[in-house]
């Protein structure tokens, strides 16, 4: 076995996993606060990436202006979706709410095809091009810098959750909605903010992933990988999102490199199936007790 090759592949996989962790964090945020499983997260990422394309490619803004604009655009989209389409579904069965997010995903794909056509696109390169070496291991610069930017936001989020007022409100709402209400927390605003911040994480990750792998209306498929990540990690666990994100990213890349691209999805879904059988609530998720 060629250890150097394995090391390089693993490194690339771990870096990709870092981005998965970021997206999964956005997903978990939305789930924790609002109990909505967001099947549209891949499409929100895609939409932000297309916005970046429009700002940086179409309007020829500098990438460092276009990136924040695209991310803000994606977050606003998340907020609008919550206000207009998720809020009316409050209290409906989870099946219905999930179907709404699937419908939203379809609408977003249609919109993107409408505006930017269905052809694959390449994002203008904005990350440094010098190859990155970690010890003897080579890492593609796009992936490396994408990972760095992604982890920076990830750390900001973790600190925000832990220390800020908003983060405390979010955690309070997640653990007990009624109690949060009675303590004067504006739960509706928390719902909206969870969607905004969740979409923000997804949008940044979307631009970074699209910068390495290209962009097309099928980009939202990545949402399926994220779904695997959050189920494996536990839907309501931030730690789970991080650990499972890195692991699934690594596994996917290694399986793709050694077995061939068609094995990427089945490999991660095997892990998913095993986890569902052994620990249905995920590695770090809370086991909910049901009462009649």
């Amino acid at each position, binding site marked *: 076995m060629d250890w150097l090759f394995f090391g390089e592949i693993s490194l690339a996989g771990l870096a990709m996993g870092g981005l998965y962790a970021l997206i999964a964090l956005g997903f978990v945020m939305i789930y924790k606060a609002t109990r909505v499983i967001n099947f549209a997260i891949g499409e929100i990422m895609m939409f932000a990436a297309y916005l970046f394309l429009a700002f940086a490619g179409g309007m020829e803004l500098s990438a460092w202006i276009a990136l924040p604009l695209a991310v803000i655009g994606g977050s606003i989209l998340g907020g609008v979706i919550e206000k207009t389409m998720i809020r009316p579904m409050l209290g409906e069965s989870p099946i219905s709410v999930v179907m709404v997010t699937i419908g939203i995903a379809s609408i977003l794909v249609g919109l993107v095809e409408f505006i930017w056509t269905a052809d694959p696109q390449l994002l203008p390169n904005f990350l440094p091009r010098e190859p990155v070496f970690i010890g003897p291991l080579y890492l593609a610069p796009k992936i490396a810098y994408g990972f760095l930017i992604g982890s920076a936001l990830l750390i900001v989020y973790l600190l925000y959750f832990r220390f800020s007022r908003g983060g405390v409100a979010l955690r309070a709402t997640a653990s007990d909605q009624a109690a949060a209400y009675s303590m004067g927390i504006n739960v509706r605003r928390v719902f909206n903010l969870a969607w905004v911040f969740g979409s923000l994480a997804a949008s940044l990750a979307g631009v970074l992933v699209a910068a390495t792998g290209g962009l097309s209306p099928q980009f939202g498929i990545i949402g399926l990988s994220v779904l695997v990540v959050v189920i494996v990690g536990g839907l309501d666990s931030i730690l789970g999102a991080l650990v499972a994100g890195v692991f699934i990213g690594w596994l996917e890349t290694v399986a793709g490199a050694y077995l061939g691209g068609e094995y990427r999805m089945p490999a991660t*879904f095997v892990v998913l199936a095993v986890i569902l059988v052994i620990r249905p609530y995920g590695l770090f998720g809370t086991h909910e007790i049901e009462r009649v």
Partner: protein
Amino acid sequence: MRIGDAKQTYEADEAIWTSNTQKLWFGLLLLILLLFPFMADSYLLYLGCLVGIAVISTTGLNILTGFTGLISLGQAGFMGVGAYTVAWLSLNTGLPFPVTLLLAGLVAAAVGILVGLPSLRVKGLYLAIATLAASVFLHFIFAEWESVTGGMGGLSLEPAHLFGLTFQSDFRMYFIIVTLAVLMVLAARNVLRTRVGRAFIAIRDRDISAEILGINLLRYKLMSFALSSFYAGVAGGLFAYFYRVVTPESFPLSMSIFYLAAVIVGGMGNLLGGILGAAFMTLVPEALKLLTAALTPFYPNAPVFMSPMLEIIFGALIVGFLIFEPHGLAEIWHRIRRFFRLWPFRN
């Protein structure tokens, strides 16, 4: 206004046909379905076949999702199992179509039971993800098990045959498809008024309560999975005979979502809703195609926008129905009926 409608026994209340008028309407419907192929052109006939297949599959999914409350994203995968079974059997054994279709249903049902096994431990959305995993594996098997499924190239098969009669044209396929659709919907209606059906509904409403009432959850959940995938398998088999080519790409994830959407738009937990939903969701894209064709002389760009418009309309229908009409088309239908039934009174 409808009168003389008081029921005095449970049997009368549970009966499929509660009045002679109902029988008359149903007879009329059958007559129309029978005469339709003689009057329709080939395009309408093709649509009729598509709707028939969609009705069978949607009814199956409705049993699982609408009546038992188990959400499944694997319907297309189960249809694929049925389609590959039919294709393989017709290539390797030459059995007549009733046998192959039955086997298609049974094989799909077996796969359905296998997929349903985790349903006792995982619920709700986790179950949806488990069925999603199943459909990923099935797609992988379709694409990679080349000795049986023909790999990415798929399989092409001979037309359906029985007693020396071959069903090559849409005209002949129509009769198989519609007969099966009618029979299978009636069978579903019948199952749902038995103990089994009531057990499904009890599980949907609250599974823990159902268990306390003495319903064996695993058994009935698996039964629901088996029944639902049997329907999917038969629909997939008809799909194979209809197009006479089966590839892994014939059954994408979007197809599973399509059937879920049909159940929702039609009305969850309502067989009539499933039928209406299947017909509606199949015909909307066709209507859009006609509209595009009509607009093309004025806006040469129209065909370019058709596919994105379709995506948007598809999504908007799901979201719109869930927010504004959660009980679906069936509820609209009932409202219309109630109006006539109560006429001349308002409410």
